[in-house]
């Protein structure tokens, strides 16, 4: 699966990602409706774009009482507007604060990877946002093997 890889050191805070994202979401350039957001700290010239990391174990999805959050073909956790009742539980469950509530439509909204062609990555002029294949190495596996009792896993298949 491809994911959004964000390299904050490259971000210069131009907010183009927010403009493009909001256009995909709403049809107008309206950063208040963007689902990628840049946290900027001018005094430190520090910028950090953040958006939904599309958790494998998605709490928004599990928390939703009406099963309005599904998994799209692109692998994104997606809110289905016709099912969402606007209870905001997903926004509370999300550990990253990247599921939002739209007071105009009374629905939750979040990054859907633009159906597999994320606009934020396309328009970022400094390649601070990349859409890349996620690494699949089992990095906890080697850690576990190292810590495991010698022979404990022998014979386990």
């Amino acid at each position, binding site marked *: 699966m491809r994911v959004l890889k964000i390299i904050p050191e490259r971000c*210069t*805070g*131009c*907010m*183009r990602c927010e*403009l*493009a994202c*909001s*256009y995909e979401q*709403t*049809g*107008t*350039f*309206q*950063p*208040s*409706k963007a689902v990628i957001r*840049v*946290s*900027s*700290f*001018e*005094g430190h*010239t520090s*910028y950090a774009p953040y958006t939904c990391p599309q958790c494998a174990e998605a709490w928004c999805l599990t928390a939703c009482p009406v099963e309005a959050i599904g998994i799209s073909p692109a692998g994104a956790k997606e809110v289905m507007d016709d099912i969402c009742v606007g209870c905001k539980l997903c926004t509370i469950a999300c550990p990253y604060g990247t599921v939002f509530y739209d007071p105009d439509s009374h629905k939750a909204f979040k990054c859907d990877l633009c159906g597999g062609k994320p606009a934020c990555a396309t*328009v970022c*002029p*400094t390649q601070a946002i990349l859409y890349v294949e996620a690494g699949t190495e089992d990095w906890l596996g080697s850690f576990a093997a190292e810590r495991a009792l010698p022979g404990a896993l022998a014979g386990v298949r």
Partner: protein
Amino acid sequence: MADTPYAYAGRILRVDLSTGRIWADPFPGADRRRWIGGAGLGAKILWEEVPAHAGWDHPDNRLVLATGPLAGLPVWGTGGLTVVTRGALTNGATSTQANGFFGANLKFCGYDAIVFQGQSPKWVYLHVTDDKVELRDASSLLGKDTWETQQALEAELRLTGHRLSVYSIGPAGEKLARFAAIQGDYGHVASKNGCGAVMGKKRVKAVAIERGAKGVAAAHPHALLATSEEMAHSLKTDPSTSSLYQYGTLPGVRNLHGMGALPIRNYTTNVWPEGVDVKLWEAKSLREGFDHRGHQCSACGMHHCHMQVIRSGPHKGELVDEPEYEGWAGAGWAIGATDPQQVSWLNTRLDRACLDVNEFGWLCGWVMECQQKGYITDKDLGFRLEWGDVEGAGRLIQMICRREGMGDLLAEGVKIASEKIGGKAAECAIYTMKGESPRGHDHRSRWEEMLDTCTASSGTIDSGPAVFPTEFGLPARISPQDPVAVARQVGTLRGRRHFEDSLGACIFTTRVPIDLLCRSLAAATGWDFRRDEAIRAGRRAVTLMRAFNLRCGIGPGIEKPSKRYGSTPVDGPIAGVSIMDQWEKLLDTWYETTGYDRASGRPLPETLRALGLEDVIEPLWGAGARA
């Protein structure tokens, strides 16, 4: 946003400071197409609303902070602010720009411009968040510099970064220094013609705009995104802009020195002083000689604006804004300072005080030369100020900001100060007779810009450097000291700059073919908008500013440089070549090209008619002229 016109918010925010009344006027479709926004909209308001008797410091003067149709859209460098007012240096029209996020954030609040009128009885700042607009008490902000003001408002409003735009004046604006600027979003300065003094006179300390929740719609969004990529490609790859893309205006120092246009020590020389490490002044060194990071304006991908940290010297560790070429010249070469670390510090000090770096360079360089020659004594000034003394120049800023001692006179700008002191001191000051500050070059080798500065109606250059001149039927390159070719170029390009300054975009990201700009505007607005209309719109704006100036009594008699500004270089690449020998010829050709009357300076009735300015004919030429 079905009720919102494409690319515009469709409303102009009006603030009467005398009464505290705040309201929104519509910005109707016909006006949008005729004036576009920014400089065009400002020129219209100035002409219609500021009478001749209302000088820069009169309550009836207007302070227009306008953006344009591209602001808030994903075109590079489109957070644009154009300030239009009757300015303090020329007491005439002003059009001066800054970028950052002003335009984008204002449009997201639902306004295309803010127009101040009247004068507030006490110091205030304007707070804008969507439809909630208030004048708030600014007494706790007084005395703070522009960066401190922004930090204080960030803390008060609990917002950081680009979710809050603050454009403010520092102490120099509060004390009505005639070359005070308006500074915003850490390092973006609308610096010309004392627009900060106008803001100070109106007792507005700052404008704080929270990014609104509204959207800006484009008529053809996909075409807009595609054109925007095309513009980006042009900026990155065209030989005339690729170094600008890479390093902003940093290469200017070396390049301009090569052509004798780097102003060194108040125009007394055009050659690097001995012992200067020239390598430090290459673009790459100016960038990498500091810890740095990009600090881009709305939607911009240029590697232009940066923040940097001073690496050595008394101000080591301080966070500053990477100077533009103008800063390296005004806070550096013009005053004989040659250490980039120190120059960078002084440049940000000027931004924070809200002083125009160009005028400061001419003023401080003049004081230094006068000290050296004994025209201004240590006793007059209160201390000794030698060439290249950056800490001393910092002290001068403080004196100007407090109007302390000689600082009171210096705050009036170099023209008034040198005329007051008189004698030989008056002869070595750099200014135009209209009062506006030349930009940070030695224009004795850039004839096009000296002519442009002296004939301009906007308080700074009107035409600017030639961008794709062949689009205007001009040769790609001209002999720089051919008066006819130079004047024809300046006159023919007239209008392009004011069209750009009406878009809400940056002058650097609009350095693309004008057809590309037109396509971008067409995609944003849905208009069928072509090159001819763009040039007409720009010329209409700048011609109206000229008409405004004529109404205020600013005529062609003072369209010339001061003695030093128009002097003959003594060394360097064009030593001995005098622009003043050709001055009349430059003016003759320029007037012929622009369609203005050589004797009275007035745009000819047929010129006005061709620009759709029929209603200006009678005020300029009298009742009989219309027929």
